[in-house]
């Protein structure tokens, strides 16, 4: 083995790649341009639709209540909803989204309330339809307020203090550091994205440097030079690893930058005013933890793509692999999936879970060393497989 030869191959592949428009597109343009647009677009859309939905004066229908003028008057004065004349098909109108909700008021409601006889008002709405749910919430609030007013009036009539009905209040507030909130919110997403981008970033060059070379006829040219096959595969592997890491880094930077610049829009859209932060050094630590995974991806993609005769064939081998990567990475985002001795054995998933812990500020060195070590072993196996493949004539000259 000669590092000098591997580096010669690496430098050439790097130059070759940088001149390839397809690489630049998949490695730079998509993460750098698409991410800010996507984030900004999402924030804008959410703000826009949430805004219009909240501003809407929801049309509702009342069933009954003709004998309860007090309640009717209060409802008409309530600005959140607009009472439209009742029709027999009110239920269908809700499901057809013509009105947002229907309220059924029992007979003699006003009278029952005045003598303290408990009655039940029901609200019919469309579950999971955002506008209908908003109308339901408004109505709920209206009836809560109405009930409190009834209580206060009753207390006043008996000469009792109004706070008798509410002897104490409850207040809740976030008391955790912004970085912890950010970790809980995005802790799973960050390793997921880094892992996916490491993989997709390695995919294209892995196919181009193996099956692509066979297809273009340059494989035989390079094999006729004195560079050993091991040096050649190491050079190619280093190039694929570079592409993988650079793609993941660029995506992460772009994502972080667009998140930072549009943070306010996103937060105002979701109505959360809790400050959120992501600790950059934790993200860097996650990156380090994922690095052997990138080695594993680069080497196994290299080994698999080398089997193919053409770029197109390589795509059919490589594309399904992305699901093998996404499934455990996605499982890592799921709530309740925590690092234990079982999940710790699953590659990719264990890295995801350990990363989640790192981002939330928990550094369990034992876990991390074990997972890092295990992934390194997998990576070494992948690299050995790639080297082996490159030394097999039937793979190199498959016809």
């Amino acid at each position, binding site marked *: 083995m000669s590092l000098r030869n591997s580096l010669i191959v690496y430098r050439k592949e790097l130059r070759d790649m940088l001149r390839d428009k397809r690489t630049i597109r998949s490695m730079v343009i998509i993460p750098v341009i698409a991410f800010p647009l996507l984030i900004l677009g999402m924030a804008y859309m959410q703000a826009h639709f949430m805004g219009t939905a909240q501003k809407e004066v929801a049309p509702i229908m009342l069933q009954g209540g003709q004998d309860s003028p007090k309640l009717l008057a209060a409802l008409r004065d309530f600005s959140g909803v607009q009472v439209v004349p009742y029709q027999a098909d009110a239920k269908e109108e809700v499901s057809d989204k013509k009105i947002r909700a229907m309220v059924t008021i029992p007979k003699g409601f006003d009278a029952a309330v005045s003598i303290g006889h408990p009655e039940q008002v029901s609200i019919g709405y469309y579950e999971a339809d955002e506008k209908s749910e908003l109308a339901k919430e408004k109505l709920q609030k209206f009836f809560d307020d109405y009930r409190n007013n009834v209580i206060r009036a009753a207390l006043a009539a008996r000469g009792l203090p109004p706070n008798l009905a509410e002897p104490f209040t409850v207040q809740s507030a976030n008391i955790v550091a912004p970085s912890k909130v950010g970790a809980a919110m995005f802790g799973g997403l960050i390793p997921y994205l880094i892992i996916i981008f490491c993989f997709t970033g390695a995919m294209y060059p892995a196919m181009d440097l193996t099956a692509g070379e066979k297809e273009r006829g340059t494989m*035989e040219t390079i094999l006729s030079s004195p560079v050993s096959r091991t040096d050649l595969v190491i050079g190619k592997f280093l190039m694929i690893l570079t592409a993988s890491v650079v793609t993941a880094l660029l995506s992460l930077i772009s994502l972080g930058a667009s998140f930072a610049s549009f943070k306010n829009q996103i937060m105002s859209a979701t109505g959360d005013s809790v400050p959120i932060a992501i600790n950059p050094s934790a993200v860097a630590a996650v990156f380090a933890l994922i690095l052997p995974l990138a080695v594993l991806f680069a080497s196994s993609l290299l080994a698999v793509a080398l089997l193919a005769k053409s770029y197109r064939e390589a795509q059919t081998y490589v594309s399904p692999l992305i699901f093998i990567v996404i499934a455990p990475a996605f499982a890592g985002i799921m709530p309740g999936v925590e690092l234990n001795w079982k999940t710790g054995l699953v590659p990719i998933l264990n890295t995801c879970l350990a990363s989640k812990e790192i981002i939330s500020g928990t550094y369990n060195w034992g876990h991390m060393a074990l997972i890092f070590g295990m992934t390194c072993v997998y990576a070494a196996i992948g690299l050995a497989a790639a080297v082996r493949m490159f030394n097999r004539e039937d793979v190199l000259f498959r016809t």
Partner: protein
Amino acid sequence: MIEANNLCKNFKDKKRGDIHAVDDVSFTCKPGEIYGLLGANGAGKTTTLRILATILAPSSGTANVAGFDVVREPQKVRAHVGFLSTATALYDRLTAAETVEYFGQLFGLDSATIERRTNELFAALDMEEFRDRRCAKLSTGMKQKVSIARTLIHDPPVMIFDEPTNGLDVMAARSITDFIRQCRDHGKTVIFSTHVMTEVEKLCDRIGIIHAGKMRTEGTLDELRQNFGKDSLEEIFVEVSGDAR
């Protein structure tokens, strides 16, 4: 100098089972000599030459190329061989000069030698005009010249050509045959494969006719004519390849 001793190469094929692509092939090719390997498609020419260039390893037998054994010292063999075939393409996104430089580096030359050799070769092959043009943008003839420069950068004593004129037009093919002749005149050991009789008649000092992996007959053109009692190489070739069918 090339000395092939009982070279065999077997492939496993799912449908056809074991294939003896090269079956006990031996021959010798001396410096300052052009050895022509003649055979139909699939006769075993390419496999034989790939073994000599150490791109493939022989199943049994061995060969000595430029003083090194193809089985034990394949890297040293490659360092002393120039290998050119129609299958050896160029990197589209490298320029002519970068291609030659890359191979110079892979052959372990220092940058001063690479620069000197590149300048010599580009002048000799009249390539200055497209020195910094990318290979994708070159004509077939220009690409051929880049390939020649690429094979010659380390000034190898042995040249191996696998059907070098296949698919080329008359002018490009002619520049290749001229180049092959020059290699011989510079005292290099040259072996080349083809199925074009006229090329063999014009160029080769010695001829080997290979069929179904076996070396059927060998000798100078005159020897072959005498042995077979025929004047035309094509007739000889048909007789040699035909009787096996």
